[in-house]
């Protein structure tokens, strides 16, 4: 038996994305952000998107290209502090922003990927972050119901992959990528290197290929990953 080959041209992979879709995008700051897939989604042009990403990168980088191109209706995120453009769009009412506590966003995505309907947590109880949310009592203590998150498409960035879509991430570029790679109907991975089957040892796989629909090797590494001087 031989595991199927899921390699695919990047344009064909993002071609499945439709207007109004929910799209998860990996990354925490620059590391792990699928810069090339984002550019391909800009070229594809799908609009009215709901994006799920930890942050909005910085002005003129990563997710910001989708904001600049007017493709985003809604953003589910944790922190926009480094992107003044995203904050301006939010304040002007041009995009709808839902803030989540960072670890709760991660758990909601994990629940979505694990086939679980919601998680319960006491994070935010007694603050405005819990306002308007369903509260249930468990063991004599109030918990917020945090619904699972799933997406139509997830875009992830891996360091190494194989042709079946097994993925391995580098250093802190892991972050939300393995969680999002489980939580979408269609999972598209860009990888700095796509190895033949067996090139990625079974013990070294971070995301099993069974979760991944398309994998594409990057012809070049986006200049947006370059180390910046602050």
């Amino acid at each position, binding site marked *: 038996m031989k595991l199927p080959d899921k390699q695919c041209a990047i344009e064909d992979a993002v071609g499945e994305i439709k207007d109004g879709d929910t799209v998860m995008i990996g990354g*925490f*700051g*620059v*590391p*792990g952000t699928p810069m090339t897939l984002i550019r391909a989604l800009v070229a594809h042009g799908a609009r009215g998107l709901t994006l799920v990403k*930890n942050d909005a990168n910085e002005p003129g980088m990563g997710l910001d290209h989708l904001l600049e191109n007017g493709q985003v209706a809604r953003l589910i*995120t*944790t*922190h*926009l*502090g*480094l992107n003044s453009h995203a*904050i301006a769009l939010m304040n002007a009412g041009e995009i709808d*922003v839902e*803030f989540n*506590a*960072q*670890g*709760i*966003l*991660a*758990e909601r*995505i*994990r629940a979505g990927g694990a086939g679980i309907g919601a998680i319960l*947590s*006491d*994070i*935010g109880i*007694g*603050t*405005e*972050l819990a306002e308007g949310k369903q509260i249930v009592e468990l063991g004599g203590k109030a918990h917020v119901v945090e619904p699972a998150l799933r997406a139509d498409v997830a875009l992830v960035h891996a*360091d190494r992959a194989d042709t079946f879509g097994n993925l391995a*991430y*580098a*250093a*802190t*570029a*892991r*972050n*939300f*990528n*393995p*969680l999002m790679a489980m939580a979408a109907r269609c999972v598209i991975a860009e990888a700095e290197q796509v190895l033949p089957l067996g090139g990625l040892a079974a013990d070294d796989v971070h995301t099993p290929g069974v979760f991944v629909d398309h994998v594409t090797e990057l012809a070049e590494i986006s200049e947006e*990953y*370059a*180390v*910046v*001087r*602050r």
Partner: protein
Amino acid sequence: MVARAAREIAPGMVVNLGIGLPTKVVNHLPSDFPVCLHTENGLAGIGPSLSPELADRNLIDAGGAYVSTVPGSAFFDSATSFAIVRSGRLDLTMLGAFEVSAGGDLANWKIPGKFSPGVGGGIELAQKARRVVVLTTHTDRAGNPKLRQDCSLPLTARGCVSRIYTDMAVIDVSESGFSLVETAEGVSTADVIAATGAPLAVPATPLPTF
């Protein structure tokens, strides 16, 4: 004050240092000090910051600074990172503040109408670290006390702060409110009382300075 706050870190701890002033605490620890520094974006065992020439583009801390690993470091995903925080594995976190109340409430994420970039990981750090200490200037830029009877800004977490390190003093939050522990060199008890927006208990015995 940063050097004084560094004495908060005991050997063997797992510690998360928030963005801003708290990040500088690490500069006051000996290089062989036995501590595990955690950062929200998925690393336990943070090593020294690196210059752009030496930086790894895939290795940053939650504040976006290029950092390194140490022998024994581990990388993990964002769910695991906050499992560490929420499950009580984090012994200590040091956070910045806009306001701290006499009951230990912390406000550090939102100024309605002016500043609302999102809460990030701060709420879980504040609510779930085993010990939460705050590093902040004693007053804001306009000279208003940051230590108040009640917070006026949206809260990050209720009743979470144990101790506050400022440029003027070290102050504990107890069941009866703020109490003065130490003063900075050249700062009088009366100065601290005047700059604090809630009653401050002062022990009868002479206070150490830092």
